[in-house]
């Protein structure tokens, strides 16, 4: 990303069992990604309702990257529940003028460092490209 491009602010939601150690692993490998990324740790993102995601956007985040455990979740049925919920979140986002690519539900394992960084970089680019307000330095 060059200096003339706006760096979107991304919230990364991780899980105790899978993606938090996975994001740590990216650090252990000294892989690089945008500094405008802020990670929170949950037991499972299934805990958040539709309104919660909308509030995150309202707070000023440009993108939400949900690094779940996917089907490897230690909890029964949570990934399916999140998947359905994110479909509703996207409908609500559209009503706010946000682009569907500003949220991503994915799975990151404990050693998925390369995959995580590759995907996060692509996501960051997508958000910058598709978000409704692009701020370009003069």
């Amino acid at each position, binding site marked *: 990303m060059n200096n003339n491009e706006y760096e979107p602010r991304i919230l990364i939601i991780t899980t105790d069992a899978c993606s938090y150690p996975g994001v740590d692993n990216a650090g252990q490998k000294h892989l*690089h990604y945008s*500094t405008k990324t802020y990670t929170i740790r949950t037991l499972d993102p299934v*805990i958040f*309702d539709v309104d919660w995601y909308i509030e995150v956007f309202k707070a000023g985040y440009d993108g939400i990257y949900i690094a779940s455990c996917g089907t490897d979740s230690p909890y029964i049925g949570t990934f399916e529940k999140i998947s359905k919920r994110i479909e509703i979140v996207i409908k609500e986002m559209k009503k706010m003028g946000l682009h569907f690519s500003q949220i991503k539900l994915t799975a990151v394992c404990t050693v998925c460092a390369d995959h995580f960084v590759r995907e996060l970089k692509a996501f960051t680019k997508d958000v910058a490209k598709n978000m409704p307000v692009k701020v370009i330095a003069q």
Partner: protein
Amino acid sequence: MIKKEEKLGIYVCHCGGNISDYVDTDKVAEIIGKEPGVHISKAFMFMCSDAGQNMITDDIKAEGLTHVIVASCSPNLHHMTFQKVVSEAGINPYTYRHVNLREQVSWVHTDDEEAATEKSIRLIRGAIAAVVKLRDLSAIQKNMIGAGGIIGGGIAGLNAALDIANHGIPVHLIERTSILGGQTLNLDKLYPTEVSAHKFVDDLIERVNANKYIFVYLNTEVVNTTGTIGDFTLQLQTNGKETQEIHVGTLTIATGFDNYIPMKGEYGYGESEHVITLPDLILTLNSYKAEKLVINGKEISSVGMIHCVGSRQIDEIHQIREGAKLNTNCSKICCTAALQQAVRLKQMFPYLKIVDFYRDIRTYGEKEIYLDQVAKAKVTLVKFGDEEIPQVEIGEKLKISTIDELTYGIRVQAKVDLIVLVTAIVPREKPAIVEDLSLAIGENGFLAEAHVKLQPIESPVDGIFYAGTAQGPKDVKECAMSAAATSAKAVMLLKKDIVEIIPFIAEVNTELCDGNGDCITQCEYHAITLVDDCDTGKKVACVTAELCVSCGACIPACSKKAITLIGYDTNDILGEVRAMIKEVDM
């Protein structure tokens, strides 16, 4: 909002340069020191050192800190270290907060100190917003029944029972058939040592029977299981009628596997009595004495073996039974078993011609010796491709044809007297306990562990462990290893009088709850029930602490927002998220 009486201590670690080489830690401490409620903000070389820990202890005591945040390496390394420090200095350990400045800031932003410094400040601000919302908690304590339960008396169950009983802990070993030993009894010799399987199992059974701490239940099924870690209640039914109840503190599930039975017509199976499975061949040879091999009345002079029958199935290449799922897994142990039997056949009947049709040979580790042995025994190996599965024609001779990948795609054909299908290891029908305790089944149909790498033999339900092939294909050695691992975990719990459960469970605000039960339908663990509220008499949701696995699936279900997950309140998390992107004046 920070209350007046709150005094926060923030400690920013240099990590000997791992953080401070890329983040201006002194500046972070300085700017954070101006945040409301922050009483102390310091940067230090190694917070995890004795000097660092003592500094926190002294500050808590001298300054009356109410909350502590350490910003250093990953919490996976030192969260518990600092929880202990604050706890010993008088602060509730569940109100401690850790910020990850190393793995998630300095090491991933080594090229931009200014941005990394700003991000560090933001993350600590988020932690400040979160830490003041955390409340004092205590671990939930529960009495532990000092006896273990093991379901399944095969190689894994026997080993697990002995490993627990050798610590002087009573073990209830429940086996559904009339004998102990499981499927190992159907084998001949165990690879790679070539020890007699029967002798090996007999020795184990003798030791189990001689152990006064092991109580064996034969012909017994577990028909119902209730309870949680520390006290599981098992309803046992013996010989299909007599019932009894036992109580155990932990449970090990070692219910084993089934061999795949090919469909009629699959490689000629069921159409010719000279198309048999590998387990059939092993059983036949176990009691075979004659010099010539005769199977189902036919003298056998040539044998064709076909690997991956029922394993590594590909959609539209392999046919499966109606309603069944493709088994895309490798069964892992059958390559070695097939080659071992090929060598055995050549040793028993040196005149036999054997052709082995394989897809990929997976004789991993020490099992590689069997590949050498089949080569020396002049067994012909033919490698078929994923999409070129061998075709079988039934006739006087059985014809197997495929394309041999080792000879650059030449179509080859073998006419043999006997075909041996190297069949898959498949999951056994779900035991009742899976439903009773909401245990997870993986994509492959076997029991799914809590975490494939970090908790490989634990179920997601506390106090329940998986041993042996109930969890997926394993050989005898691997079964014994997993049994030993489960027993080590079980013994650690069973030796305690009290078991502590982390208090991050769902909690109901009964004033807000309208008793509509939406949370109950979302709970896969049967942890929530409706009860009468003592004060108002209305129906309200009630969480059984020991059954709650803290997944949080119930939280968004409540339109009244009457249910929260302790330690993970979504409003508080939103506060943390908001605090992280407030502008920073650098």
